[in-house]
């Protein structure tokens, strides 16, 4: 088409940790999609990580502001049963109907465990050189 798609990559740095720690988990059961995002959603562009999940990042700063997992229960949890166990407890607290989003301790704990799980997933993908310009591995504090 005479133009080139800019192959931007999300950037992992100290801010990533802070951004993801302040997110909320929101599950859309109709679409079987889990969103980990800021409480007030921000415009972002999505990056597909191995067909497993979308990493949402700000196109100007490249800072990561959220994650989106399609086919969360039907595919993702079946591939990652360790996350499925945690989800069983957290689901009633993270499922949103319309615009109402549950925000309590269980949901926060689930988010913390899930982010720790993503930490491992990211590390695995980083080793496979899926990202350029990566200097820091995510570490989620409990």
């Amino acid at each position, binding site marked *: 088409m005479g133009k080139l798609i*800019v192959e*931007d990559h999300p950037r992992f740095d100290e801010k990533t940790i802070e951004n993801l720690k302040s997110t909320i988990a*929101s599950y859309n059961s109709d679409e079987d999609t889990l969103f980990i995002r800021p409480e007030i959603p921000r415009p972002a*562009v999505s990056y*597909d990580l191995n067909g497993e999940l979308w990493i949402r990042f700000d196109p*100007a700063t490249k800072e990561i502001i959220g994650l989106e997992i399609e086919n969360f229960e039907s595919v993702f949890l079946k591939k990652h049963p360790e996350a499925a166990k945690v989800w069983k407890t957290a689901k009633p607290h993270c499922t949103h109907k319309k615009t109402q989003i549950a925000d309590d301790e269980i949901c926060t704990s689930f988010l913390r465990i899930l982010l720790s799980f993503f930490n491992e997933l990211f590390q695995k993908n980083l080793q496979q050189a899926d990202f350029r310009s990566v200097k820091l591995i995510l570490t989620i504090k409990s």
Partner: protein
Amino acid sequence: MNIIDCFDKDGIKVVCDEGTWYNHILAEHPEMTGCEEIIKATINNPYEIYQDRIAINKKVIYKPFVLPKPFHTYYLRIVIEYDKSKFRGTKGYVRTAFACVNKKKGDILLWESSL
């Protein structure tokens, strides 16, 4: 009321109701604000169409360079779920739409524009 009411490249009616538009698409992907006409035009004139690797009745459309700045150098991705009814024929429903850097790994290319 439908926010999007158009036809895909094969002449199948595709819609997106208010609930999906506001509670899913805009609520989770605010970069799509004001992009209704762009989505309609893309459904009608896509760049590439993929078969979703999980759901047999879902197709994924990509088109680059159609979104406003600062997303103008990325792809617009639209997922359409087709419902086949004995009485009404086939109808498509927009399930999601957002800006993306790359295409989802694993989906199967069905058609691409000759452009």
